[in-house]
């Protein structure tokens, strides 16, 4: 069954989606660079915090890739990435407030990403909203 053509769905990679992918790419770059430098030079000081930065970088990279990937598979991957992100930022944000001693060094997601203007918290929400508008499955 074909859906009615009266309401054309916006393309996932253009318009606001282009802005979203751009910001994700920027965060991938920032988190990856930060994690790389920290893992190389200060890993022994707070291994868990730095590993979390690296994990965040991986997820941002995965989000950038899957949001740009056309087709239902890209859509599914992008949704999984956004859900993992929102769970991650809420969990790490809460733990960093409840047990700051375990986070001697800030990660991208500490305090819900306040060091990055709370953008890490906003990004997955915006991504999920955009994925809803461009639903492909």
């Amino acid at each position, binding site marked *: 069954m074909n859906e009615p053509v009266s309401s054309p769905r916006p393309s996932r990679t253009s318009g606001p989606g*282009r802005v979203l*992918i*751009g910001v994700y*790419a920027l965060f991938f770059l920032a988190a990856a660079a930060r994690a790389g430098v920290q893992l190389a030079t200060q890993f022994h000081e707070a291994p868990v915090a730095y590993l979390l930065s690296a994990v965040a970088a991986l997820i941002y990279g995965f989000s950038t890739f899957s949001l740009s990937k056309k087709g239902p598979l890209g859509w599914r991957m992008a949704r999984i990435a956004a859900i993992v992100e929102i769970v991650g930022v809420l969990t790490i944000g809460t733990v960093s407030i409840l047990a700051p001693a375990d986070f001697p060094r800030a990660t991208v997601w500490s305090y819900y990403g306040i060091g990055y203007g709370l953008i890490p918290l906003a990004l997955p929400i915006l991504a999920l909203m955009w994925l809803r508008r461009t639903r492909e499955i």
Partner: protein
Amino acid sequence: MQDWLKWSILGLGLLQALVGYVQFRRKQSPGRTDLVVGGVLTLVVAVQLVVAAVVLSGPKSIGEPVTLFGYLVAMLFVPAAALWWGRLDESRWGSLVVAISGLAMAVLAVRLGQIWATR
């Protein structure tokens, strides 16, 4: 860090953000002005990169040189990457991409100043 270089990057980044935002509001796609501002911005970052390399090879120490050069190299490509990505989209949203990249450059300029001053 040379103050005039930091303020130049900061100012040009904010200018790029303003130009992009005005175009976004006017429903225009990125144009010539964005290219010129982005080009000058990249040039200033390149000058800063050379200055940092010269200072670092001398007796004076800079805080966290690895991070500093990481920032500078990334900043060298952000304006061009944003212009390329933004201009692929022939709509107002391309201008918003450019605007956000300008804001990011301004933030990076501030962080760069802090890293330079770290001892």
